[in-house]
């Protein structure tokens, strides 16, 4: 998550973002390296996806505007328990791959032959960490993390996974703004799932829908701030 934040902070100050399509030649140079969303063909660096191209030092990368969630190690995700097996839970993490949460990755001691649904039942929502991804795409989650927890109440909405850094903002500025103004608890998973619980949760939902729609434009924080002002009235001055 920290890595994503640094990418975000640099783009806000850099030159205006350019939308590119797959097959676009971004640069003809051997000194520049192809980053995510790009590949090299002879001397050219070419975009793989429809997205926003940006140069960061010697690396050119393209952030896609759509696409599914591909898990990375140490990501925090919001998953839904989809099944219970002998020693693990199956978790839907929205994306092409299903994840597993073994009992060994849950806090506390679980008795032999215990009823696992007493810990996590089918349909429960969890905020978990991606522990490991095997070569065969077997994904293990972990709840043995200070941030990991079961999410009760509230509701879930979805965002394109590549737009998650936009929702979080520079050093968490965007998400803090929405949380404070709508007086809500919000948890964002790298898989694009967002959990909202609080007072003006419908306004928070509107803000997220707006980020989904306008993520490729500039001055997004101002737009969201204006929208929140309209929906909730100007913020009161702190006494």
């Amino acid at each position, binding site marked *: 998550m920290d890595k994503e934040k640094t990418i975000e902070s640099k783009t806000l100050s850099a030159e205006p973002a350019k939308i590119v*399509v*797959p097959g676009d030649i971004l640069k003809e140079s051997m000194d520049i390296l192809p980053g995510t969303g790009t590949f090299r063909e002879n001397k050219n660096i070419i975009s793989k996806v*429809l997205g926003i191209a940006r140069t960061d030092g010697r690396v050119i990368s393209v952030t896609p505007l*759509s696409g599914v969630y591909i898990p990375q190690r140490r990501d925090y995700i919001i998953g839904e328990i989809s099944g219970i097996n002998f020693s693990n839970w199956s978790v839907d993490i929205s994306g092409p791959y299903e994840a597993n949460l073994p009992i060994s990755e849950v806090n506390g001691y679980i008795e032999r032959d215990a009823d696992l649904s007493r810990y996590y039942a089918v349909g429960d929502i969890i905020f978990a960490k991606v522990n490991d991804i095997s070569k065969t795409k077997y994904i293990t989650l972990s709840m043995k993390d200070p941030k990991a927890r079961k999410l009760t109440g509230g509701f879930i909405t979805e965002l394109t996974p590549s737009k998650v850094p936009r929702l979080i903002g520079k050093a968490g500025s965007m998400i803090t703004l929405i949380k404070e103004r709508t007086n809500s608890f919000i948890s964002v998973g790298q898989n694009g799932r967002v959990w909202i619980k609080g007072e003006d949760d419908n306004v928070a939902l509107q803000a997220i829908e707006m980020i989904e729609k306008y993520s490729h434009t500039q001055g997004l924080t101002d737009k969201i701030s204006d929208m929140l002002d309209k929906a909730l009235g100007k913020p009161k001055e702190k006494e």
Partner: protein
Amino acid sequence: MTKKERPDNRKLDEIRPMKMKAGVIKRADGSAQVEFGLTKVVAAVYGPRQIHPRHQEDATKSVLRCRYNMLPFSVSDRKRQGYDRRSTELAKVITEALEPALFLEEFPKTAIDVDMEIVQADAGTRAAAINAASLAIADAGIPMRDLVTSVAAGRANKELLLDMTKEEEDAEDAVDVPMAMMPRTGKITLLQMDGIVTPQDTEKIICLAEVGCKKIYEAQKKALLEKYGS
């Protein structure tokens, strides 16, 4: 060669009026609508997602599954709905035309489903379907080496033509050559031929189609950028 005119007042190497739009279906991961004159296609892409039935799964790459279908009202005689020999074959050749452009190895054990519906047919439906599918795949955010563009060229009434209509295709001496390519590298991913031509004319027809593909490529790029208002 470009002087003479055709039934619809086009030049010999002119493509029918094109309309392309990306992101027309909300519930799909990616979608596009493409029109070439009266030919109208809608394509939708789902995935990469879990593969069902599971025995189709490939541990090294994603499986591209295309479906080509003509709606009953797409042709003048109501077509019986469902798969037939023609649609099954076209689904196969379209899969093979799109596959080289995709980085399938990035999503092992998954499926990418591409559905193409021919809403209205006036020749060149497979070319239009490939163009729509390629746009829809790009719209879905699936990594590609290049967009795939396609057009049919051929011969009718002793003239070599680009993007023929049904009327022209019904000529006595008609030859139909559908072609798909990746314009940046110029690699051809689909080349079929129906009819009898000399090798010299075949070459000319392929050149004609190549020029057509490059024009379509620009229209495709425009359609993708238009979705994001630039």
